[in-house]
């Protein structure tokens, strides 16, 4: 070190050769680690999902008599025909994602996993569910079929949340 000082004619700087290479090595390792972490995250985050479409065809409205609550287990939605019109509720419990069921004898929607209860407007009657069952966007297509978009929530009991036929 003393020799280096003599050769260059400058006083010793903050880092000597060993410290420089140590910092260079650790820095490179850090950058490589961060890059690997980013790479791994991106790799494990799917870009394309082969999941069912969020839009479900629920068929002709006359399948659902007035006052009926009908579940489609495969798509996880209720189609309900009330006095105000047709509307759709998510059948997925807001607690931990179990499939709820309509209990006609109790006139309510109940979850088999942890006992949450909702009325037919989706309003929470009993926990542990933290939130009411969300309403889903429902409309008629040109063929006269009811379509439900499971990815779009609409306000409960709002005028536009019903389909009138």
């Amino acid at each position, binding site marked *: 070190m003393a020799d280096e000082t003599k050769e260059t004619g400058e006083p010793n700087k903050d880092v000597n050769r060993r410290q420089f290479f140590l910092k260079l090595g650790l820095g490179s390792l850090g950058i490589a680690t961060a890059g690997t972490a980013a790479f791994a995250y991106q790799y*494990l*985050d*799917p870009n394309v*999902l*082969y*999941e069912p479409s969020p839009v479900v065809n629920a068929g002709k409205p006359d399948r659902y008599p007035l006052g009926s609550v009908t579940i489609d287990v495969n798509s996880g939605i209720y189609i309900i025909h009330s006095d105000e019109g047709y509307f759709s509720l998510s059948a997925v419990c807001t*607690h*931990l*994602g*179990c*499939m709820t069921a309509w209990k006609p004898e109790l006139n309510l929607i109940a979850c088999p*996993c942890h006992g949450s209860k909702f009325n037919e407007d989706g309003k929470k009657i009993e926990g542990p569910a933290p939130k009411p069952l969300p309403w889903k966007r429902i409309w008629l297509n040109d063929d006269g079929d009811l379509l439900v978009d499971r990815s779009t929530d609409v306000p409960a009991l709002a005028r536009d949340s019903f389909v009138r036929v």
Partner: protein
Amino acid sequence: MAKTIDQHFDDLRGTRVWRSIFRSGTGSSTLKRALAIQQNVFLHLFSTKVRTRMLSFSATWYLGTLTLGTFLILVATGIPLMFYYHPSVPQAYADTKDLQFVVSSGMFLRNLHRWSAHAMVFLVFAHMFKVFYRGAYRTPREFNWVIGVVLLLLTLLLSYTGYLLPWDQLAYWAITVGSNIASAVPVIGEKIHFLLLGGNAVNANALLRFYVLHCMILPLTAMFFVAIHFWRIRKDGGLYSHDSEPATVRANAVSSAKPAKEGQ
């Protein structure tokens, strides 16, 4: 005069092939026996000497060793199960039923795997309670307690990921509920849920991810930590013995507990 079995074994241990594998050589002197442990890649994790009283049932109830035993059974039964199981949505449930009802000894292997998994969770908890109530987690063994907590989590994750693989209703809804619990983590919860399942719902990606976690990542991670766990027993002074505590600690413990069983 005919040689005894021990003499035959000594002859075997003297052969050139044997000596090329096990360097410690023949003889049963304390040194040779210590070398046999110390020079073995697997056994060198352990102490070369153990106090006789620490090998008594009452000292540890053998809970750690039994846990290792169930883990080895799970590896030995899990690998054959992998030969018949496809981690895909159309086949997983059918393969599970085949293993149960069609494959020779399939039911035996599957049940042994299942019961050992239950036993391992029980034994891990029992082991931790025993260590806790004996005070064996204290200095200098705090770090090994932490390793033990990691192993508890790995055991539970192994149970959880294995639960999905039969792909029946119980599995599907249990994993739906369990993965939704992960979404409760603040800020990144939804992302964890998405990455764990490889999608928004329990589906083909989730089944494959749980399979890889269950059969590769988690067992290898567990083996890594088990090796550290065993090595630390030696490094921390061997199995915990109450007699090795300082006199003041012993006196306190004796005055507050029944002294009759002192020293195990």
